């Protein structure tokens, strides 16, 4: 700050508080709504303070879900989301680390070709090639399975690039020293490269976990069996049903769906910011 302006500072705080209030509003409303009893929302004018039905709403959604929709219990869907998110995250990290290692530390035929092949995936998001991708997964018999939910999403140009950039900054002497000491390629990878990359891995883990957890179109396409519904896509089946929508229960599911990734961001904010600014995508 250049000058001392007490009024300016006050205005800054007011502005920021308004901004924060606006950002918090939808979630605040969701939390309030999720604590109301049946029918209380229908009276018009949402209450501004929590009601007394939080425990029963959350317990009902966690254990049995909405009877009026095809979605199973929220507990089950949260579990599915967790498995899918972790499988995507771990898969992306593993195959990106390996391919970045190959591209940086080896010289072999078609290296450039493979590099571009991986690069191209950046340009083909699921959204633009929905139907042919669905067909491939269907032909492979991977509909309604965790393999189908995660494997097609684990190719990642972004993570490969990030690790490539990072490996390029690792001093040459590391490899020389390892080779003088007689370490093979995989030993070098495991005992030197991986420990050095640990912060990058953690930062990407945060970003990829959020990415995996928030998948929507993909589970929508390849799950027809409610056993495999994830929470983010399951919620939509609750509000698109005709007739009465029990919003207090839907909002309980919304809060449960939002909590895990938001907690990850809040508790790992430093890693989250690092991951976000370094992947730039």
């Amino acid at each position, binding site marked *: *700050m*250049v000058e001392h302006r007490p009024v300016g500072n006050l205005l*800054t705080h007011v502005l*920021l508080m308004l*901004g924060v209030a606006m950002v*918090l509003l*939808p979630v605040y409303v*969701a939390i309030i*709504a999720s604590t109301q009893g049946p029918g209380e*929302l*229908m009276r*018009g004018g*949402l209450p501004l303070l929590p009601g007394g039905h939080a425990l029963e709403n959350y317990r009902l959604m966690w254990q049995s879900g909405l009877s009026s929709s095809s979605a199973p219990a929220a507990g089950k869907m949260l579990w599915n989301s967790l498995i899918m998110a972790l499988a995507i995250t771990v898969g992306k990290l593993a195959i*990106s680390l*390996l*391919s970045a290692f*190959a*591209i*940086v*530390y*080896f*010289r072999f035929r078609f290296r450039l070709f*493979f590099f571009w*092949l*991986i690069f*191209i995936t950046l340009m*083909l*998001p699921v*959204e*633009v*090639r*929905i*139907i*042919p*991708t669905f067909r*491939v997964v269907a032909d*492979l018999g991977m509909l309604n399975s965790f393999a189908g939910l995660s494997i*097609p999403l684990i*190719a990642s140009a972004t993570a490969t690039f990030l690790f490539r950039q990072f490996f*390029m900054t690792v001093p*040459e002497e590391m*490899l020389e020293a390892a*080779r003088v000491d007689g370490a093979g*390629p995989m030993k070098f990878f495991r005992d030197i490269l991986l420990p050095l990359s640990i912060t990058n891995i953690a930062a990407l883990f945060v970003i990829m976990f959020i990415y995996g957890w*928030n998948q*929507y*179109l993909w589970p929508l396409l390849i799950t027809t069996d409610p056993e495999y519904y994830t929470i*983010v896509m399951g*919620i939509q089946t609750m509000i*698109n049903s005709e007739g009465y929508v029990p*919003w207090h229960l*839907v909002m309980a599911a*919304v809060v449960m769906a*939002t909590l895990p*990734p938001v907690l990850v961001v809040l508790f790992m*904010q430093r890693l989250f*910011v690092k991951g*976000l*600014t370094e992947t*730039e995508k």
Partner: protein
Amino acid sequence: MQTKRMTLPGGWLPYALLAPQVIVTLIFFIWPAGQAFYQALLREDPFGLSRTFVGLDNFARLFNDPLYLNSMSVTAVFAIGTTLLSMSMALLMAMAVNRLIRSRHAYTTLLVWPYAVAPAIAGVLWWFIFHPSIGILPYMLDMLGYRWNHRTSGTDAMLLVIFAAAWKQIAYNFLFFLAGLQSIPQSLIEAAAIDGASPFKRFWSIVFPLLAPTTFFLMVVNVVYAMFDTFGVIHATTQGGPAQATNILVYKVYADGFVGMNLGSSAAQSVVLMAIVVALTVVQFRFIERRVNY
């Protein structure tokens, strides 16, 4: 492309290391994309019984289809609206936070978490607070004399999806703007202040030009986000309605292919979208190169 000065002995090992990534890419990216190109040239009946080669006819039909042209302009309005709203809010917040020292971290924490909310969930949250009969915002708007109804009014529906999409993206833009602001040398601003430039003038003649690279970068990222990552916002809320008012391109590909079973048209739409992504990616990468030298 560079490698290390000293490399490891090759043999089959690098191929084995690349294999998982390459196999997944070939099966789930390259092959389906090729299929999209191929199907875009065919006409198939919905049951898959007959297919005829029609050349570029699917594309010709697409660009003569008023619904597709409508979808293009809807996408443009949506992408521009989301980008402008989200970036201007984020810039305002970042400038404010940048003035502060002690409370900077607290405000940052409070502003970044929506990044973690899924677009579909963001859509449901805003759908709920704008719900015509039980939402709180229509209740307030009603007192101002405006009857909000996103089920019947196309404008209301468009505003709703823009709010939801922009809300989620503020966090991302905020972090990049804040980083951009913090990299501006304080001495420049102080020098301008000594020369008597008002805060407003300092912003327009120093801060804003120096922030231009960040702004351009974010514009591309936001347009990509609005065009391709917001499927969930639309599908969970308006489903393209009312009367096609929010039928953005990525939603239309899905609706025409899965619900309408018009495979040739959907494949042609996929090809058009891929062309758009390629163009945007090229812009983005060229731009990142320039940004480094700025």
